[in-house]
């Protein structure tokens, strides 16, 4: 219950960077194997920096809120910095305690973002 605090619910209700950006240079789909939920991340990458990012998808409050928060964190950052993001970082900005069964929901967006490195090489 602690997990569903005001800030999380706000991100879920009004997610930041939600929608498809035009002329994305990289699109990554990520599926949650637990439930089949899917997020799609859109990136504009130039000079090894994330110039713009957005996402779309169906998901629970946890996965939508983390996608929203994570997209905000990585906007404007270098690929090097983004590649160093860990699950711990995500849990830190989520703030609440995440039950093991829900970690997949919390890490869905991170899994997508982690693929940037492989896909831009």
């Amino acid at each position, binding site marked *: *219950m602690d*997990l*569903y605090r005001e800030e999380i*619910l706000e991100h*879920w*209700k009004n*997610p930041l960077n*939600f929608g498809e950006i035009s002329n*994305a*240079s*990289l*699109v*990554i*789909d990520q*599926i949650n194997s*637990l*439930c*089949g*939920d*899917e997020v799609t991340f859109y990136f504009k990458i130039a000079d090894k920096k994330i110039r713009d990012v957005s996402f*779309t*998808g*169906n*998901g*629970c*409050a*946890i996965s*939508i809120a983390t996608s929203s928060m994570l997209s905000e964190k990585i906007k404007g950052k270098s690929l090097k910095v983004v590649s160093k993001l860990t699950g711990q970082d995500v849990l830190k900005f989520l703030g609440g305690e995440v*039950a093991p*069964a*829900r970690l997949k*929901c919390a890490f869905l967006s991170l899994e997508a973002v982690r*693929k940037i490195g492989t*896909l831009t090489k």
Partner: protein
Amino acid sequence: MSNIRADFPFLDRKYAGKQLAYLDNASTTQKPGVVISAVVDAYKNHYANVHRGVYGLSQEATELYESVREKTTKFIGAKSSREVIFTKNTTESLNLLAYTLGQRLNGGDEILISDMEHHSNIVPWQMLVERLATNGKRVKIKYIPINRQGELDLSNLDKLVTRKTKILSLTLMSNVLGTINPVSKIIRVAKKKAPALIAIVDAAQASAHMKIDIAALSCDFLAFSAHKMYGPSGVGLLWGKAKLLYDLPPFLGGGDMILSVTREKATFNELPWKFEAGTPNIADVIAFGPAIEFVQKVGFARISKNEMDLTKYAVERLAGDPLVEIYGPGNRGPVISFNIDGVHPHDVASILSDFAVAIRSGHHCAQPLMDAIGIPAACRVSFGVYNIKEDVDRFIAGLRKVKEVFKLNQKSKIRILNRGSSRLRLDRNNHRTNEMSRKAQ
């Protein structure tokens, strides 16, 4: 139901000071004390390998193991225990069939299943089609669609079954919608058009709730699992007509499934052992015996009355809520799938968990069905013999909490979950298969 609840030790444990309102029986059931002690007793007092030792203990284990085969035979109304095979679960039973029956299929043959199947009655057939394709044989899987009521749409059954239909495999009760399918009728109609067709019934969901009678079902094979009917996990059942089983090649090769082996060749064992390679799950098979006895002692009349009273009550409570959408039919077993408008099922289940109410959330291993309904996921409650009205009340109270947390009483409109979902659109475009896509720069 008080005496039945006393039979189930899981109710002795408290979660947040309460007994667990366990409403995930469609996934697996809790075990009565007689089953749990039978596992312990088997290991303590009767454990040795079966069908092998000539010493007394091995014979004892063998007799207990085989006596459960006899009980299972009577439970489903089979003619002979030679027709009853122990596997590890319904999934393995269906894989056994896909593997062995599949060796007889030819290019152009068709397999007919439905949009309502569990993944275990879809994926083995898809894998079979892939295997046959590598041998140059093109075999097609066809799906009986569902209608807006969440029942099988049989209006085109005549066209779906052709003379090339060799296998028909259907669930008797949907694990998501609870729909009870008119399987025997479908089999009769299908066999008229395709007399050589093999009819398989997936009774995994049904077996704990209604009497299984293979003669009335008029099927050729039937698969179910012990764990969904108060028995141990790790024990699956496969019944098949002796004549058909006799003709089929073995599934797994190894110990106990042979009569003799030379360097060149093996002669396979008699039925049913031809299909039971290796040391089986001895103790759990033995403990399945008391599970069958438990179900028979309570009786399907009483089981069904309790479960369906609760189902009716829960549907009434849910249906009164304008934010709740229930999926599924009038003719259902004790399974209800639903969504709260705008809230993801995982969030619902997480919050209910804090109130010691256990429900399932997700796609329930039936993604094609989710696609047909037009939803990514659903919440599901399902009842068992030990559930009581208070479980439903606590579940409904938990849903009120969910709505509080998500402030749904403030008419907040949520766009994400509702994105592009039209209810019960019959659209099987699977957009979830691409793990990754990359757009050109």
